[in-house]
């Protein structure tokens, strides 16, 4: 099957054409640099995104505290991670960079707080 996507590595925004007739080795064309080819392949084989969300807290002043994954997470794992985060109720104080969820599903990816809330 043929796919079209916009490369997001730089502002050029190349239109990539990807042929995944061989699903293990998708063929990328339309890219103007090697980064585009690598991006196209990763998007086909194992697309990843940094996930950001807010979690509920017992803080009197900031009831929802922002969090993110410390590395991009496989797209397929995102919905379940979000469900887990929405059920959290965290105790303050928390510090920017503190780990909320360690090594999510064995991926080596942590969810960290992105704001310091003292009370």
């Amino acid at each position, binding site marked *: 099957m043929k796919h079209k996507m916009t490369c997001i590595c730089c502002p050029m925004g190349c239109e990539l054409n990807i042929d995944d007739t061989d699903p293990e080795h998708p063929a990328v064309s339309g890219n103007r640099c090697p980064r585009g080819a690598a991006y196209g392949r990763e998007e086909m084989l194992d697309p990843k995104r*940094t996930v*950001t969300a807010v979690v509920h807290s017992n803080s009197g*002043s900031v009831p*929802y505290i922002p969090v993110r994954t410390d590395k991009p997470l496989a*797209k397929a794992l995102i919905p379940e991670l979000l469900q887990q985060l929405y059920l959290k109720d965290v105790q303050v104080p928390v510090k920017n960079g503190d780990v909320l969820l360690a090594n999510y599903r064995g991926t080596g990816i942590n969810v960290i707080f992105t704001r310091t809330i003292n009370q």
Partner: protein
Amino acid sequence: MFKEDFDVTIIGGGAAGLSAAAATAAAGLKTAVIDREEYPGGILLQCIHNGFGLHRYKTELTGPEYAEKVFLEAQKAGCTFFPSSTVTAIGKMTDGKRLVTAYSVRHGVMELNSSAVILAMGCRERNRGNIATPGSRPAGIFTAGLAQRLLNVDGCLPGKTAVIIGSGDIGLIMARRLSWVGITVKAVIEIQPYPSGLPRNIAQCLEDFDIPLFLGHSVVRIDGNDRVSGVQVAPLTDGQPDLNKAFAIGCDTVLLSVGLVPENELSRQVGIQLDPATNGPIVDHNHMTGEPGIFACGNVLHVHDLVDYVSEESDACGNAVINYLRNRNTPAQGKIIAGTYLRYVTPCSFAPGQRNLYYMRAQTVMDKADLIGAVDGREVFRQRLHQVKPAEMIRIELPPEALAGNPGKTLELSLHPETVR
């Protein structure tokens, strides 16, 4: 009444105000930052997504992380932060100093007597009135930034199914955010033939969730009694919506992401001249407005798309304030104006012996264009640009030799496209 003397008073504690404060306070100037919110950081605090700081901190941060970094810089440098305080007036004293009056939750009425003032109030969103969308006036219509605040700060869901008007970056970011909290985004409607947000946001915020983007379409009516029930969308033909081809999209929520306007009520009150192209103050190469001792930087000056450039511009503004208070400012040597295919250039003058950093915006989309600087029709500067878009601010540092030896002259910057789309 609370009164205190400062060398510099900065109005607004977002990225611009805090960056400028870090510069002036680090130079030993007694610096105050006044902000109407409880916490420093401005709009960054509700921008919980990543993508900030790649230029300034060489790492990818979320808004709150960027805010914390820049606030710690200002705090370490020794600036005084006044939270929950709204500035109501900037007066002029007989000795030329400025009196900033504010209402503060902690201090009541306060007066800060200052040798210099930096305007860093940021911008606010255009709303339904600005784009004159017909229809009824039900609940469920939000600006994208308001919906962002409801979700990310207050933890409230704005609705269940949404249509987003305008493809600005905040709208695109919100499309992903809404999808991630279980709200269905039916469509994004953009009146221009090209998206106004960054390609990366189109890819990661719309394509990831199969959200259709209607380019060259306009919302011609919002329907609903108590709550929004849907919108009527029509394609544009010769710049006019073709109502014969209109179609309905059902939704209970409409978000507007249709541009930002610098927030200059205070500037107007002081009598500062604004540039109709940016809606921000006209400033010289020292970032000083037409009023001596009053400076401006960040989104109050012109709307940026990257916070990194807000900080860069505000650093420069802070440094100019330091020089001003030490009587070391260089007078303007000549003016800079925007020529063909440029909507604006800021700042609007140049001087020898300092960094000549200019920000500008193109009027239309171009694959390749030459940015040319000319004095009296004589070319003194040329740079090739690729993928020029109105959505992406152009940042140019002019080499000193381009500007040397042109006293009293006007430098015209203009874009010369190879092909116009």
